[in-house]
Protein backbone atom coordinates (compact mmCIF):
# COMPACT_ATOMS: atom_id res chain seq x y z
CA UNK A 1 0.00 0.00 0.00
CA UNK A 2 2.70 2.48 1.01
CA UNK A 3 4.73 1.43 -2.01
CA UNK A 4 1.71 2.13 -4.15
CA UNK A 5 1.29 5.53 -2.52
CA UNK A 6 4.90 6.61 -2.99
CA UNK A 7 4.67 5.42 -6.58
CA UNK A 8 1.65 7.68 -7.12
CA UNK A 9 3.26 10.59 -5.29
CA UNK A 10 6.48 10.48 -7.25
CA UNK A 11 4.52 10.16 -10.48
CA UNK A 12 2.51 13.27 -9.65
CA UNK A 13 5.65 15.14 -8.61
CA UNK A 14 7.41 14.34 -11.89
CA UNK A 15 4.31 15.36 -13.79
CA UNK A 16 4.16 18.64 -11.90
CA UNK A 17 7.81 19.40 -12.69
CA UNK A 18 7.24 18.73 -16.38
CA UNK A 19 4.14 20.90 -16.49
CA UNK A 20 5.99 23.63 -14.61
CA UNK A 21 8.74 23.73 -17.20
CA UNK A 22 6.31 23.73 -20.10
CA UNK A 23 4.36 26.52 -18.40
CA UNK A 24 7.47 28.71 -17.95
CA UNK A 25 8.50 28.33 -21.57
CA UNK A 26 4.92 28.81 -22.69
CA UNK A 27 4.63 32.04 -20.73
CA UNK A 28 7.88 33.47 -22.15
CA UNK A 29 6.75 32.61 -25.67
CA UNK A 30 3.29 34.04 -25.04
CA UNK A 31 4.72 37.28 -23.64
CA UNK A 32 7.15 37.75 -26.52
CA UNK A 33 4.49 37.00 -29.12
CA UNK A 34 1.86 39.23 -27.47
CA UNK A 35 4.13 42.26 -27.39
CA UNK A 36 6.23 41.48 -30.42
CA UNK A 37 3.65 40.54 -33.02
CA UNK A 38 2.03 44.03 -33.29
CA UNK A 39 5.44 45.50 -34.12
CA UNK A 40 6.28 43.11 -36.87
CA UNK A 41 5.31 44.22 -40.33
CA UNK A 42 6.93 44.37 -43.73
CA UNK A 43 8.57 47.67 -43.01
CA UNK A 44 10.06 46.43 -39.72
CA UNK A 45 11.62 43.43 -41.46
CA UNK A 46 12.93 45.22 -44.53
CA UNK A 47 14.13 48.65 -43.49
CA UNK A 48 17.14 50.04 -41.70
CA UNK A 49 16.96 51.40 -38.16
CA UNK A 50 16.41 55.15 -37.91
CA UNK A 51 17.25 57.63 -35.14
CA UNK A 52 19.76 55.23 -33.52
CA UNK A 53 17.28 52.41 -33.38
CA UNK A 54 14.33 54.30 -31.93
CA UNK A 55 12.43 53.90 -35.18
CA UNK A 56 12.59 51.86 -38.33
CA UNK A 57 13.37 48.23 -38.90
CA UNK A 58 15.97 45.59 -38.23
CA UNK A 59 16.91 44.38 -41.70
CA UNK A 60 20.70 44.62 -41.21
CA UNK A 61 20.47 42.68 -37.95
CA UNK A 62 18.48 39.89 -39.61
CA UNK A 63 20.92 39.72 -42.51
CA UNK A 64 23.88 39.84 -40.13
CA UNK A 65 22.61 37.00 -37.96
CA UNK A 66 21.82 34.99 -41.10
CA UNK A 67 25.38 35.44 -42.41
CA UNK A 68 26.90 34.57 -39.04
CA UNK A 69 24.80 31.43 -38.78
CA UNK A 70 25.69 30.27 -42.28
CA UNK A 71 29.36 31.04 -41.60
CA UNK A 72 29.26 29.08 -38.35
CA UNK A 73 27.66 26.07 -40.06
CA UNK A 74 30.22 26.13 -42.86
CA UNK A 75 33.13 26.09 -40.43
CA UNK A 76 31.83 24.05 -37.51
CA UNK A 77 29.95 21.26 -39.27
CA UNK A 78 32.79 19.77 -41.35
CA UNK A 79 35.34 20.26 -38.56
CA UNK A 80 33.09 18.84 -35.86
CA UNK A 81 31.89 15.86 -37.85
CA UNK A 82 35.41 15.14 -39.05
CA UNK A 83 36.71 15.18 -35.50
CA UNK A 84 33.85 12.95 -34.33
CA UNK A 85 34.56 10.42 -37.08
CA UNK A 86 38.19 10.31 -36.06
CA UNK A 87 37.39 9.89 -32.38
CA UNK A 88 34.65 7.30 -32.85
CA UNK A 89 36.06 5.25 -35.71
CA UNK A 90 39.82 5.66 -35.98
CA UNK A 91 41.36 6.82 -32.72
CA UNK A 92 42.68 4.13 -30.45
CA UNK A 93 40.71 4.12 -27.22
CA UNK A 94 43.38 4.98 -24.70
CA UNK A 95 44.33 7.62 -22.14
CA UNK A 96 45.06 10.17 -24.82
CA UNK A 97 41.68 9.87 -26.54
CA UNK A 98 40.01 10.00 -23.14
CA UNK A 99 41.92 13.19 -22.42
CA UNK A 100 40.81 14.68 -25.73
CA UNK A 101 37.19 13.84 -24.88
CA UNK A 102 37.52 15.36 -21.44
CA UNK A 103 38.97 18.52 -22.98
CA UNK A 104 36.10 18.73 -25.46
CA UNK A 105 33.46 18.33 -22.77
CA UNK A 106 35.20 20.95 -20.64
CA UNK A 107 35.24 23.33 -23.60
CA UNK A 108 31.49 22.91 -23.90
CA UNK A 109 31.19 24.40 -20.43
CA UNK A 110 33.38 27.46 -21.02
CA UNK A 111 31.36 30.72 -20.69
CA UNK A 112 30.57 32.38 -24.00
CA UNK A 113 32.32 35.65 -23.09
CA UNK A 114 35.56 33.69 -22.81
CA UNK A 115 35.05 32.54 -26.39
CA UNK A 116 34.44 36.17 -27.29
CA UNK A 117 37.77 37.23 -25.79
CA UNK A 118 39.52 34.26 -27.37
CA UNK A 119 38.08 35.21 -30.77
CA UNK A 120 39.17 38.81 -30.24
CA UNK A 121 42.70 37.73 -29.44
CA UNK A 122 43.13 35.05 -32.09
CA UNK A 123 40.97 36.00 -35.07
CA UNK A 124 40.50 39.76 -34.78
CA UNK A 125 43.97 40.75 -33.63
CA UNK A 126 46.43 37.95 -34.27
CA UNK A 127 45.01 36.77 -37.61
CA UNK A 128 44.24 40.39 -38.56
CA UNK A 129 40.70 39.57 -39.68
CA UNK A 130 39.50 42.67 -37.81
CA UNK A 131 35.99 42.80 -36.39
CA UNK A 132 34.37 40.95 -39.25
CA UNK A 133 31.91 38.24 -40.25
CA UNK A 134 34.87 35.90 -40.64
CA UNK A 135 36.14 36.48 -37.09
CA UNK A 136 32.63 36.27 -35.65
CA UNK A 137 31.74 33.07 -37.48
CA UNK A 138 35.00 31.43 -36.47
CA UNK A 139 34.43 32.42 -32.85
CA UNK A 140 30.88 31.06 -32.85
CA UNK A 141 32.16 27.93 -34.58
CA UNK A 142 34.69 27.38 -31.80
CA UNK A 143 31.90 27.71 -29.29
CA UNK A 144 29.61 25.11 -30.87
CA UNK A 145 32.36 22.68 -31.93
CA UNK A 146 32.42 20.74 -28.66
CA UNK A 147 28.67 20.13 -28.76
CA UNK A 148 28.79 19.11 -32.40
CA UNK A 149 31.66 16.71 -31.74
CA UNK A 150 29.98 15.10 -28.75
CA UNK A 151 26.57 14.65 -30.41
CA UNK A 152 28.12 13.44 -33.66
CA UNK A 153 30.26 10.90 -31.86
CA UNK A 154 27.19 9.61 -30.06
CA UNK A 155 25.32 9.35 -33.35
CA UNK A 156 28.21 7.33 -34.83
CA UNK A 157 28.36 5.00 -31.87
CA UNK A 158 24.63 4.37 -32.11
CA UNK A 159 25.14 2.60 -35.46
CA UNK A 160 25.13 -1.15 -34.72
CA UNK A 161 28.48 -2.90 -35.01
CA UNK A 162 26.88 -5.53 -37.25
CA UNK A 163 26.66 -3.10 -40.17
CA UNK A 164 30.35 -2.32 -39.91
CA UNK A 165 31.35 -5.97 -39.60
CA UNK A 166 29.19 -7.06 -42.52
CA UNK A 167 30.67 -4.36 -44.70
CA UNK A 168 34.27 -5.12 -43.71
CA UNK A 169 33.67 -8.84 -44.22
CA UNK A 170 32.69 -8.12 -47.82
CA UNK A 171 36.11 -6.63 -48.41
CA UNK A 172 35.23 -2.97 -47.93
CA UNK A 173 37.96 -0.78 -46.54
CA UNK A 174 37.37 1.06 -43.31
CA UNK A 175 36.73 4.35 -45.06
CA UNK A 176 34.34 2.72 -47.57
CA UNK A 177 32.52 1.19 -44.62
CA UNK A 178 32.24 4.49 -42.82
CA UNK A 179 31.15 6.33 -45.93
CA UNK A 180 28.53 3.87 -47.12
CA UNK A 181 27.38 2.12 -43.98
CA UNK A 182 27.97 4.34 -41.00
CA UNK A 183 27.62 7.98 -42.06
CA UNK A 184 24.29 7.58 -43.90
CA UNK A 185 22.69 6.12 -40.78
CA UNK A 186 24.17 8.62 -38.34
CA UNK A 187 23.96 11.78 -40.41
CA UNK A 188 20.47 12.63 -39.16
CA UNK A 189 21.60 12.51 -35.54
CA UNK A 190 24.65 14.60 -36.37
CA UNK A 191 22.74 17.25 -38.29
CA UNK A 192 19.96 17.49 -35.72
CA UNK A 193 22.35 17.91 -32.81
CA UNK A 194 24.47 20.37 -34.73
CA UNK A 195 21.59 22.54 -35.84
CA UNK A 196 20.25 22.73 -32.30
CA UNK A 197 23.68 23.86 -31.12
CA UNK A 198 24.05 26.38 -33.92
CA UNK A 199 20.55 27.69 -33.29
CA UNK A 200 21.60 28.47 -29.77
CA UNK A 201 24.78 30.11 -30.98
CA UNK A 202 22.75 32.34 -33.29
CA UNK A 203 21.22 33.89 -30.20
CA UNK A 204 24.51 34.48 -28.39
CA UNK A 205 25.66 38.04 -27.73
CA UNK A 206 28.93 37.72 -25.88
CA UNK A 207 31.03 35.95 -28.55
CA UNK A 208 30.03 38.41 -31.28
CA UNK A 209 30.24 41.48 -29.07
CA UNK A 210 33.99 41.75 -29.49
CA UNK A 211 34.50 40.03 -32.83
CA UNK A 212 31.91 41.19 -35.33
CA UNK A 213 28.91 43.09 -34.10
CA UNK A 214 28.30 46.74 -34.93
CA UNK A 215 25.91 49.01 -33.09
CA UNK A 216 24.67 50.57 -36.29
CA UNK A 217 25.59 50.19 -39.95
CA UNK A 218 24.10 52.22 -42.76
CA UNK A 219 24.55 49.45 -45.35
CA UNK A 220 24.55 45.68 -45.66
CA UNK A 221 27.92 43.87 -45.51
CA UNK A 222 29.72 43.39 -48.80
CA UNK A 223 32.36 40.84 -47.83
CA UNK A 224 33.36 38.47 -45.03
CA UNK A 225 35.72 41.15 -43.73
CA UNK A 226 32.86 43.56 -43.03
CA UNK A 227 31.18 44.11 -39.71
CA UNK A 228 27.52 43.28 -39.33
CA UNK A 229 24.68 44.05 -37.01
CA UNK A 230 23.14 41.01 -35.33
CA UNK A 231 19.78 40.36 -33.71
CA UNK A 232 20.96 39.46 -30.20
CA UNK A 233 23.38 42.36 -30.09
CA UNK A 234 20.76 44.75 -31.42
CA UNK A 235 18.40 43.52 -28.72
CA UNK A 236 21.09 44.04 -26.10
CA UNK A 237 21.70 47.59 -27.30
CA UNK A 238 18.02 48.48 -27.34
CA UNK A 239 17.46 47.00 -23.91
CA UNK A 240 20.47 48.38 -22.05
CA UNK A 241 22.42 50.97 -24.03
CA UNK A 242 19.67 52.99 -25.63
CA UNK A 243 18.88 56.43 -24.15
CA UNK A 244 15.15 55.68 -24.18
CA UNK A 245 14.89 51.99 -23.37
CA UNK A 246 11.28 52.33 -22.22
CA UNK A 247 10.18 53.92 -25.45
CA UNK A 248 11.76 51.27 -27.65
CA UNK A 249 10.33 48.39 -25.64
CA UNK A 250 7.99 47.29 -28.47
CA UNK A 251 10.97 47.21 -30.85
CA UNK A 252 12.83 45.03 -28.35
CA UNK A 253 9.93 42.59 -28.32
CA UNK A 254 9.79 42.63 -32.10
CA UNK A 255 13.50 41.88 -32.35
CA UNK A 256 13.23 39.11 -29.77
CA UNK A 257 10.34 37.54 -31.65
CA UNK A 258 12.23 37.59 -34.95
CA UNK A 259 15.23 35.97 -33.28
CA UNK A 260 12.97 33.34 -31.72
CA UNK A 261 11.34 32.60 -35.06
CA UNK A 262 14.74 32.23 -36.68
CA UNK A 263 15.90 29.72 -34.09
CA UNK A 264 12.55 27.95 -34.17
CA UNK A 265 12.79 27.75 -37.94
CA UNK A 266 16.20 26.11 -37.68
CA UNK A 267 14.92 23.62 -35.13
CA UNK A 268 11.98 22.71 -37.34
CA UNK A 269 14.47 22.26 -40.16
CA UNK A 270 16.42 19.85 -37.94
CA UNK A 271 13.27 17.86 -37.20
CA UNK A 272 12.36 17.64 -40.89
CA UNK A 273 15.85 16.38 -41.73
CA UNK A 274 15.59 13.79 -38.97
CA UNK A 275 12.21 12.52 -40.17
CA UNK A 276 13.48 12.31 -43.74
CA UNK A 277 16.52 10.19 -42.83
CA UNK A 278 14.60 8.08 -40.33
CA UNK A 279 12.24 7.08 -43.10
CA UNK A 280 15.03 6.42 -45.53
CA UNK A 281 17.14 4.26 -43.25
CA UNK A 282 15.26 2.47 -40.54
CA UNK A 283 16.42 -0.59 -38.71
Amino acid at each position, binding site marked *: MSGNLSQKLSYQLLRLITYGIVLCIGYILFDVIRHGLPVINWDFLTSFPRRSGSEGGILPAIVGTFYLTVGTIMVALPLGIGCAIYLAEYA*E*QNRFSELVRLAIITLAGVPSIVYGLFGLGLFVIFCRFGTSILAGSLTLACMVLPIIIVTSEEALRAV*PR*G*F*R*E*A*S*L*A*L*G*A*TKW*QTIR*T*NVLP*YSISGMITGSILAIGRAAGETAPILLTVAAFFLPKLPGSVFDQVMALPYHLYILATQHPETEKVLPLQYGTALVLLMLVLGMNIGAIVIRIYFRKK*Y*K*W
Partner: protein
Amino acid sequence: MQESNTAIQAMDVSFFYGPNQALFNISLDVAPKRVTALIGPSGCGKSTFLRCLNRMNDIIPKTRLTGKVLINGQDIYDAKENIVDLRKQVGMVFQKSNPFPKSIFDNVAYGPRIHKLHDRKRLAEIVEKSLRRAALWDEVKDRLGENAMGLSGGQQQRLCIARALAVDPQILLMDEPASALDPKSTTHIEDLIGELRQDYTIVIVTHNMQQAARVSDTTAFFYEGRLIELGRTKRIFTKPKEKQTEDYITGRFG
Protein backbone atom coordinates in the same frame (compact mmCIF):
# COMPACT_ATOMS: atom_id res chain seq x y z
CA MET B 1 48.72 -22.97 -54.95
CA GLN B 2 47.79 -26.09 -53.08
CA GLU B 3 44.43 -26.58 -54.77
CA SER B 4 44.54 -30.28 -53.97
CA ASN B 5 43.38 -31.10 -50.48
CA THR B 6 43.51 -28.13 -48.17
CA ALA B 7 41.57 -24.90 -48.59
CA ILE B 8 42.53 -23.56 -45.18
CA GLN B 9 45.51 -24.59 -43.13
CA ALA B 10 45.82 -23.28 -39.60
CA MET B 11 49.28 -23.88 -38.19
CA ASP B 12 49.90 -23.52 -34.48
CA VAL B 13 47.49 -20.60 -34.12
CA SER B 14 47.30 -18.88 -30.74
CA PHE B 15 45.18 -15.83 -30.16
CA PHE B 16 45.17 -13.21 -27.42
CA TYR B 17 42.67 -10.60 -26.27
CA GLY B 18 45.04 -8.29 -24.44
CA PRO B 19 46.69 -10.46 -21.78
CA ASN B 20 44.09 -13.25 -22.08
CA GLN B 21 44.89 -16.15 -24.33
CA ALA B 22 41.76 -17.34 -26.14
CA LEU B 23 43.25 -19.94 -28.49
CA PHE B 24 46.09 -22.36 -27.76
CA ASN B 25 48.18 -23.73 -30.62
CA ILE B 26 45.37 -24.69 -32.98
CA SER B 27 46.43 -26.69 -36.01
CA LEU B 28 43.65 -27.64 -38.34
CA ASP B 29 43.23 -28.35 -42.05
CA VAL B 30 40.01 -27.66 -43.88
CA ALA B 31 39.34 -29.60 -47.05
CA PRO B 32 37.99 -27.74 -50.08
CA LYS B 33 34.29 -28.03 -50.92
CA ARG B 34 33.48 -29.69 -47.66
CA VAL B 35 31.52 -28.49 -44.67
CA THR B 36 33.56 -28.27 -41.49
CA ALA B 37 31.68 -27.73 -38.24
CA LEU B 38 33.31 -26.15 -35.19
CA ILE B 39 31.51 -27.22 -32.04
CA GLY B 40 32.05 -26.71 -28.35
CA PRO B 41 30.55 -24.98 -25.33
CA SER B 42 30.16 -21.19 -25.17
CA GLY B 43 33.47 -19.38 -24.78
CA CYS B 44 35.54 -22.28 -26.10
CA GLY B 45 37.07 -20.13 -28.83
CA LYS B 46 35.28 -21.56 -31.83
CA SER B 47 33.96 -18.18 -32.97
CA THR B 48 37.28 -16.52 -32.27
CA PHE B 49 38.99 -19.12 -34.42
CA LEU B 50 36.47 -18.62 -37.22
CA ARG B 51 37.09 -14.88 -37.15
CA CYS B 52 40.84 -15.49 -37.45
CA LEU B 53 40.20 -17.01 -40.88
CA ASN B 54 39.16 -13.72 -42.51
CA ARG B 55 41.08 -11.48 -40.10
CA MET B 56 37.84 -10.17 -38.65
CA ASN B 57 39.52 -10.01 -35.25
CA ASP B 58 41.81 -7.31 -36.60
CA ILE B 59 39.11 -4.75 -35.84
CA ILE B 60 39.17 -5.58 -32.13
CA PRO B 61 41.86 -3.47 -30.46
CA LYS B 62 44.69 -5.04 -28.46
CA THR B 63 44.40 -8.48 -30.01
CA ARG B 64 47.31 -10.56 -31.24
CA LEU B 65 47.75 -13.75 -33.22
CA THR B 66 50.71 -16.05 -33.43
CA GLY B 67 51.14 -18.95 -35.82
CA LYS B 68 50.06 -19.09 -39.44
CA VAL B 69 46.84 -19.32 -41.37
CA LEU B 70 47.29 -20.41 -44.97
CA ILE B 71 44.49 -19.98 -47.48
CA ASN B 72 45.29 -21.49 -50.86
CA GLY B 73 48.84 -21.70 -49.63
CA GLN B 74 49.13 -17.98 -48.84
CA ASP B 75 49.79 -16.83 -45.29
CA ILE B 76 46.93 -14.39 -44.72
CA TYR B 77 48.72 -12.74 -41.80
CA ASP B 78 51.73 -11.98 -43.97
CA ALA B 79 52.41 -8.25 -44.09
CA LYS B 80 52.18 -8.28 -47.88
CA GLU B 81 48.73 -9.85 -47.87
CA ASN B 82 45.91 -7.59 -49.07
CA ILE B 83 43.08 -7.81 -46.57
CA VAL B 84 40.49 -6.65 -49.13
CA ASP B 85 41.40 -9.51 -51.48
CA LEU B 86 41.35 -11.93 -48.58
CA ARG B 87 37.85 -10.94 -47.57
CA LYS B 88 36.67 -11.18 -51.16
CA GLN B 89 37.85 -14.77 -51.14
CA VAL B 90 36.50 -15.58 -47.71
CA GLY B 91 32.88 -14.55 -47.13
CA MET B 92 31.25 -14.42 -43.73
CA VAL B 93 27.73 -14.85 -42.38
CA PHE B 94 27.12 -13.63 -38.85
CA GLN B 95 25.10 -15.00 -35.97
CA LYS B 96 22.78 -12.05 -35.84
CA SER B 97 21.53 -11.39 -39.36
CA ASN B 98 22.76 -7.95 -40.27
CA PRO B 99 21.33 -6.76 -43.55
CA PHE B 100 21.99 -3.09 -44.24
CA PRO B 101 18.97 -0.81 -43.88
CA LYS B 102 18.91 -0.42 -47.64
CA SER B 103 16.90 -2.09 -50.39
CA ILE B 104 17.21 -5.83 -50.98
CA PHE B 105 18.93 -5.13 -54.29
CA ASP B 106 21.42 -2.69 -52.76
CA ASN B 107 22.27 -5.19 -50.03
CA VAL B 108 23.33 -7.86 -52.50
CA ALA B 109 24.93 -5.35 -54.85
CA TYR B 110 26.93 -3.79 -52.02
CA GLY B 111 29.95 -6.08 -52.32
CA PRO B 112 30.31 -5.88 -56.11
CA ARG B 113 29.84 -2.11 -55.95
CA ILE B 114 32.61 -1.51 -53.45
CA HIS B 115 34.79 -3.61 -55.71
CA LYS B 116 34.13 -1.07 -58.44
CA LEU B 117 31.45 -2.82 -60.46
CA HIS B 118 28.83 -0.29 -61.52
CA ASP B 119 27.48 -1.75 -64.74
CA ARG B 120 23.73 -1.98 -64.12
CA LYS B 121 23.18 -5.08 -66.21
CA ARG B 122 26.05 -6.99 -64.63
CA LEU B 123 24.90 -5.97 -61.17
CA ALA B 124 21.34 -7.15 -61.86
CA GLU B 125 22.71 -10.49 -63.06
CA ILE B 126 24.87 -10.93 -59.97
CA VAL B 127 22.01 -9.98 -57.65
CA GLU B 128 19.67 -12.48 -59.28
CA LYS B 129 22.25 -15.24 -59.33
CA SER B 130 23.22 -14.67 -55.70
CA LEU B 131 19.63 -14.54 -54.51
CA ARG B 132 18.85 -17.75 -56.42
CA ARG B 133 21.85 -19.48 -54.85
CA ALA B 134 20.62 -18.36 -51.43
CA ALA B 135 17.15 -19.74 -52.25
CA LEU B 136 15.56 -16.36 -51.75
CA TRP B 137 14.92 -15.19 -55.30
CA ASP B 138 11.36 -16.47 -55.63
CA GLU B 139 10.32 -14.78 -52.40
CA VAL B 140 11.76 -11.36 -53.16
CA LYS B 141 12.00 -11.02 -56.93
CA ASP B 142 9.01 -8.66 -57.06
CA ARG B 143 10.20 -6.37 -54.30
CA LEU B 144 13.92 -5.92 -54.77
CA GLY B 145 13.51 -2.20 -54.10
CA GLU B 146 12.01 -2.69 -50.67
CA ASN B 147 13.96 -2.19 -47.44
CA ALA B 148 15.62 -5.41 -46.35
CA MET B 149 14.58 -4.74 -42.78
CA GLY B 150 11.04 -5.70 -43.75
CA LEU B 151 12.05 -9.33 -44.39
CA SER B 152 11.52 -12.08 -41.82
CA GLY B 153 14.44 -13.26 -39.69
CA GLY B 154 15.08 -16.33 -41.85
CA GLN B 155 14.83 -14.33 -45.05
CA GLN B 156 17.22 -11.73 -43.67
CA GLN B 157 19.78 -14.42 -42.93
CA ARG B 158 19.46 -15.87 -46.44
CA LEU B 159 19.84 -12.34 -47.77
CA CYS B 160 23.09 -12.06 -45.81
CA ILE B 161 24.24 -15.31 -47.41
CA ALA B 162 23.30 -13.96 -50.85
CA ARG B 163 25.21 -10.77 -50.06
CA ALA B 164 28.29 -12.79 -49.14
CA LEU B 165 27.99 -14.90 -52.31
CA ALA B 166 27.75 -11.84 -54.52
CA VAL B 167 31.49 -11.15 -54.28
CA ASP B 168 32.11 -14.71 -55.46
CA PRO B 169 34.12 -16.11 -52.55
CA GLN B 170 35.63 -19.58 -52.44
CA ILE B 171 35.19 -19.99 -48.73
CA LEU B 172 32.16 -19.21 -46.60
CA LEU B 173 32.49 -18.74 -42.85
CA MET B 174 29.26 -19.05 -40.89
CA ASP B 175 29.07 -18.01 -37.27
CA GLU B 176 26.03 -19.76 -35.78
CA PRO B 177 23.96 -18.71 -38.78
CA ALA B 178 20.73 -20.30 -37.53
CA SER B 179 20.94 -19.79 -33.78
CA ALA B 180 18.50 -16.88 -33.78
CA LEU B 181 16.00 -18.51 -36.17
CA ASP B 182 12.86 -20.59 -35.75
CA PRO B 183 13.00 -24.32 -36.65
CA LYS B 184 11.53 -23.86 -40.12
CA SER B 185 13.99 -21.15 -41.08
CA THR B 186 16.78 -23.24 -39.59
CA THR B 187 15.85 -26.14 -41.86
CA HIS B 188 15.90 -23.70 -44.77
CA ILE B 189 19.44 -22.59 -43.90
CA GLU B 190 20.62 -26.16 -43.41
CA ASP B 191 19.19 -27.22 -46.78
CA LEU B 192 20.94 -24.25 -48.27
CA ILE B 193 24.27 -25.28 -46.76
CA GLY B 194 23.72 -28.71 -48.31
CA GLU B 195 23.36 -27.03 -51.71
CA LEU B 196 26.28 -24.65 -51.31
CA ARG B 197 28.78 -27.34 -50.30
CA GLN B 198 29.08 -28.34 -53.95
CA ASP B 199 30.78 -25.07 -54.84
CA TYR B 200 32.10 -23.59 -51.64
CA THR B 201 34.32 -24.53 -48.75
CA ILE B 202 32.19 -23.94 -45.68
CA VAL B 203 33.27 -23.56 -42.07
CA ILE B 204 30.34 -23.31 -39.70
CA VAL B 205 30.32 -22.59 -35.99
CA THR B 206 27.35 -24.06 -34.19
CA HIS B 207 26.44 -25.09 -30.71
CA ASN B 208 23.58 -27.14 -32.00
CA MET B 209 25.10 -30.62 -32.20
CA GLN B 210 22.30 -32.08 -34.28
CA GLN B 211 22.94 -29.34 -36.76
CA ALA B 212 26.64 -30.13 -36.88
CA ALA B 213 25.78 -33.80 -37.38
CA ARG B 214 23.28 -33.01 -40.13
CA VAL B 215 25.26 -30.55 -42.24
CA SER B 216 28.96 -31.23 -41.85
CA ASP B 217 31.51 -33.65 -43.25
CA THR B 218 34.18 -32.88 -40.69
CA THR B 219 33.76 -31.80 -37.10
CA ALA B 220 36.23 -30.06 -34.83
CA PHE B 221 35.56 -30.02 -31.10
CA PHE B 222 36.92 -27.03 -29.21
CA TYR B 223 37.20 -26.77 -25.47
CA GLU B 224 38.72 -23.94 -23.45
CA GLY B 225 40.61 -22.55 -26.42
CA ARG B 226 42.06 -25.88 -27.47
CA LEU B 227 41.23 -28.13 -30.37
CA ILE B 228 40.38 -31.38 -28.60
CA GLU B 229 39.38 -33.57 -31.46
CA LEU B 230 39.05 -33.37 -35.22
CA GLY B 231 37.60 -36.00 -37.51
CA ARG B 232 34.87 -37.13 -39.83
CA THR B 233 31.55 -36.01 -38.42
CA LYS B 234 30.05 -39.47 -38.38
CA ARG B 235 33.01 -40.85 -36.48
CA ILE B 236 33.10 -37.97 -33.97
CA PHE B 237 29.43 -38.42 -33.14
CA THR B 238 29.53 -42.21 -32.94
CA LYS B 239 33.00 -43.09 -31.71
CA PRO B 240 34.67 -40.07 -30.19
CA LYS B 241 38.24 -40.78 -29.13
CA GLU B 242 38.52 -38.17 -26.42
CA LYS B 243 36.64 -38.32 -23.14
CA GLN B 244 35.80 -34.59 -23.25
CA THR B 245 34.29 -34.91 -26.72
CA GLU B 246 32.16 -37.79 -25.61
CA ASP B 247 31.00 -35.94 -22.52
CA TYR B 248 30.06 -32.92 -24.60
CA ILE B 249 28.18 -34.67 -27.38
CA THR B 250 26.31 -36.86 -24.95
CA GLY B 251 25.19 -33.75 -23.13
CA ARG B 252 27.07 -34.22 -19.89
CA PHE B 253 28.28 -30.60 -20.02
CA GLY B 254 28.18 -27.56 -22.28
